[in-house]
């Protein structure tokens, strides 16, 4: 596939301290509802998983460390069952963008209730073919077709395999 790394020297950012204070304070109250929120969705996508190249792990960093995804780039509306994820490829010509997008989509499909409508898009102005990628990622047919391809599925699975940090 790709020879050499696409982005040889990515900038790695320090992860913002997580506001876990609110996390499980409502344990004792059986009736309260923890609505699905930004942080949860972001953690679902990022924390336990690394995006890897198929053959060699391009960078052993999580999407969060590379600022591909931040908490603010996730918009959740629990009542309307909508989620929109905007991700920022590390470089403009990143050919991994579609793969990353696909992984994010599959991950969300697996971890969110089926009532959700998922929108994935590339952040405006960060990618050479941003409109095309965004369109591709939100096309049901094309996503379904992509997931028929055993090679692609295998790759996505590998990307999403839990990393035991």
């Amino acid at each position, binding site marked *: 596939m790709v020879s050499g790394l696409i982005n040889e020297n990515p900038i790695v950012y320090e992860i913002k301290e997580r506001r876990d204070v609110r*996390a*499980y304070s409502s*344990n004792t109250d*059986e009736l*309260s*509802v*923890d609505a*699905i929120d930004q942080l*949860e969705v972001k953690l*679902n996508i990022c924390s336990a998983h690394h995006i890897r190249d198929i053959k060699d792990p391009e960078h052993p960093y999580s999407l969060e460390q590379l600022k591909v995804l931040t908490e603010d780039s996730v918009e959740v509306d629990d009542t309307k069952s909508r989620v929109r994820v905007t991700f920022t490829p590390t470089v403009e010509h990143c050919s991994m963008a579609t793969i990353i997008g696909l992984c994010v989509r*599959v991950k969300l*499909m*697996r*971890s*969110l*209730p*089926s*009532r959700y409508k998922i929108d994935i898009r590339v952040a405006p102005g960060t990618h050479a073919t941003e409109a095309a990628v965004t369109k591709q990622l939100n096309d049901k047919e094309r996503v379904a077709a992509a*997931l*028929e391809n*055993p090679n692609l*599925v*295998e790759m*996505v*699975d590998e990307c*999403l395999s*839990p990393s035991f940090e």
Partner: protein
Amino acid sequence: MAALNNLTEHLEAFVDVTRSPTHHAESLKAIATSLEKSVLSINQLVVEMDMYLTTTDDVVRARGILLLAEMLDYLKSKPLDNAVVNSLVGFFTAKLAEWRSVRGALSGCLALIKRKGVAGLVTATDAEAVAKSMAQSVQVQSLALYDRKLCFELLECLLEQYPEAMINLGDLMVYATCEAIDGEKDPPCLMVAFHVVELLARLFPSPSGPVASEASDLFEFISCYFPLHYTHTKGDEASIPREDLSRGLSLAISSTPFFEPYAIPLLLEKLSSSLPVAKVDSLKCLKDCAVNYGVNRMKKHYEGIWSAIKDALYASTGTDLSFGLESLTSPGFEMNEIHREAVNLLQRLVKQDISFLGLVADDIRVKMIFDTISRYSRYEEMLDTSKLEVLVVSQILSVSARASVESCNTIFETFFVRLMNTLGIVESTSTGDLVHNENSTVSTRLYHGGLHLCIELLTASKDLIPSSEEDSSTPGCAQQSWCSIVNKFSASLIEAFTSAVQSSNDDCTADAYLGVKGLLAMGMFRGGSSPVSRSEYEKILTTLTSIIAANSAKTVKWELALKALVCMGSFIDQYHESEKAMSYMGIVVENLVSLVRSSHCSLPHPMILEATSEVCSTSPTYVEKMVQGFEEAFCSSFSDFCVNGNFKSIENCSQLLECVTNKLLPRVTEIDGLEKSLVSFAISMWNQIESSVVFSYAFNGREFVEAAMKTMRQIVGVASVNSQNSIIQKAYNVISLSTLPAMESIPLTFAALEGLQHDLSTRDELILSLFASVIIGASPMASIPDVKSLIKLFMVSSLKGYIPAAQALGSMVNKLGVGSGGTNTSSDCSLEEACDIIFHESFESGNTNSSDVTSKTICGSETLLAKICLGFYGSLDLQTRAITGLAWIGKGLLMRGDKRVNEIALVLVECLKSTNSSGNALHPTAMKHAADAFLTLMSDSEACLNRKLHAVIRPLYKQRFFSITVPILESLIVNSQTPLSRTMLHVALAHVISNVPVTVILDNTKKLLPVILEGLSVLSVDSVHKEILFSLLLVLSGTLTDIKGRQSVSDNAHRIIECLVKLASYSHLMVVRETAIQCLATLLELPHRRIYPFRREVLQAVTKALDDPKRRVREEAIKCRQAWTSISSRSTPF
């Protein structure tokens, strides 16, 4: 001859290299045993082995020689003939030249050289020959790892055991060592090699000796390892840790002063490296060198070393000075290893040579510090560089001062007066003389940097006192100049620190911190010759105490002051400072205790209690004082409540009791005499209750009663039997004067019990509860007066719904008659009689129901209690109370292993049936109580019948009860007629199952699993049972993960999954859903063919759980879903 025959066999076995190592070891062992038992002599062995030792087959010969060497190693402590040893050494020495058998030869030489203190030693001449042969004919570096190690060990051993012979050899040994080490890379060998260098250096100390002349070569060979770095860290566990090897290398480098010209420059160079390990190693090694090379040789390197130390300190110090509570007794900033080693080196150098201090004192950065200090008044305002400057310089000065008395004097003379000047404590007059400014306290400028430096110096100097006072030959520290300087300024210093504390406000903790730390430093000088006088010391205490008493909220200042007082208290206790102890007692302890006693005080009561208990636990004398104070405080508050109805006082009482329970009782084993004071506390509690006859006001809450019960129970629990007896006696007297004995006279009949409508008065209730607590806490050895009427009293009151009374009954039947080894003199009532009273007290009055024929047939328990339980007589309330009471009594009997518990279990089970044998329907509430009774029986209780409260506990009692009840309950479940009864039976069973050790469950998984599953589905119907449902689910999850239960889990997989899928959406308890989903994930460990058919069901359930209202459940669901998707086909990725 048999031995000899065997010998040949063993010899053959060992020599044959095709056999396994275990085989070899066995034959070695066999020969060694016969040698040790003297069945075979070493001579015989050699003769017998002749062929193996001389054959031309190299392999066999090598094995033969090795065998002989191994034998000698076994016989290390067996006396041998000198001639034999001599000839053997000669043999092995000769064989050293032959590379094929070098391992055997080396082991043989080593075994013989190692001989020590037994007959048959190697002579010095022989040893010399060995060394020579070794030096000339063994090429160490061409050998294998193990052989190289043998070589080094042989060298080591020769140098250690035959130093004279080795000195004769001179140069040869040094050459041999150099050659052997050159190129060595294995840690185990290097470890020995470094020691060899050390030994050589010790052997040839003369400047004209071989080591001196070869120093540069020898150093070159060892210095190339510095700093040590392991390239292969993994998979080498057996090897030597880096620290040990690095220590060995450091010792080798510092072993002889002849290395000095090469070593110090090298170390200084490595110190400038950026590798932390290199820095740490260099600093450690420099310290060793400073010790061994001597002052004269080190002197020329001082400047280099000083600047290196400075650099290391500046680079390794952070700028964050913590003003937190925990740093009051520590430096206040983080220290890494480099910092620690640099400090150690500096201290070593100053201690060794006072002239090093000149460098420190003349250093420009050190001199600059006073400007830096006076530029900023607040620490937060300082630039980072200035902070660093202050921290490092104060560290340097305090470490130097700590090194020795002389250095301390110099530092104080040079710096302290200047520092005082900067702080405004002394002022320079126009003539240039320094004048002690007595009235400067108000104008004292608070420079945080200066205060910090000052505190560091004071703390450093105080550490010097012990070392100078233990040695009576040196003059006491009072004559030392540092001490007189401190003495001169002490009053002003204390003023300065005090004003720092007092001027501090809440948003600036630095002032408070520095002030308190300063006072603490001034208060920690030891002994009579301390520079701080007694009146000044008392002033410090007064200041700190007043901070504690004055604050009305828990501020940082308050906590700091308390911690400082605790530190000073434990310091006094540690060093037995009697004079200071008196001041401490008079000022701190008395004040705080009187605060506890006085009811009008700005400080909230819990804070006073905390402060008092913390401060007073530093020494037993204070504890005694405190408990007395507590006693008085309790009595006055309690009577205040009784007379005036002051609810605040009763609240104070509860807090006080809580403080006793939580702070004092856990420490009863640590503090001598605490037990005694607590017992007297308990007795005065009783006295107070006795004397307050009238309670004009009722309690508005059970808080106080509960606190009192807990305290009483625990005090009795920790007290000795004699003290227990006195408390029991006292309590009994109180109870017999109250109106309670009237209850004893109530006959245990149905009519009489029904008549007990009125409740107890508040006072009686308190007395009853406390008395029950005493009985619960008493040990089996304690004597309880008038047991029979007490049992009656407890029976009646437990039937009136006082749970403590029921617990006391349980405790009594548990402990009766087991004290003092069966011969029961203390009690006037045996267990039999007690049980008679409880169970078989028959109807005295001719009650109409007593002739009821059917009631005689109930499971052998035609007792009143059983009948009440079954609801024959009386109201529902009475019935439920009887059941609860029965449960506690049953628990007491169960724990001591008494058979009667079976009967009780039967009664309880009877209560669970929808219709009992007489055809009466049971009320649901009664059934529920009966089911909960099983929880009481099986679970561990905090309140009574545990090890702390001296319960008699037979091992495996839970298992026994489990095996009795489970079959009965199981069969009843199968035959149960109504859903309610079925549910209740399941609740009871779940209580039993979830409280028994999990191993018992695992042994019976096959039988229990279906019942557990059924229980889970029955209990999940009603939300009332959510807790017990969860416990049962935990039991199930335990069986899923264990290998023992694997088979039956696998057999029942379909039912388990069905059940768990249902529980995954259990709406009443989040943890149930979470655990159920976790269990589903665990099930993936089962064989694939067992679980594959259920993947659709599971995935569906888990997908639903993705929309769970609780986040934790969702997270588990995501994990579980991921795991289950991976076993289903690839074509359905989501």
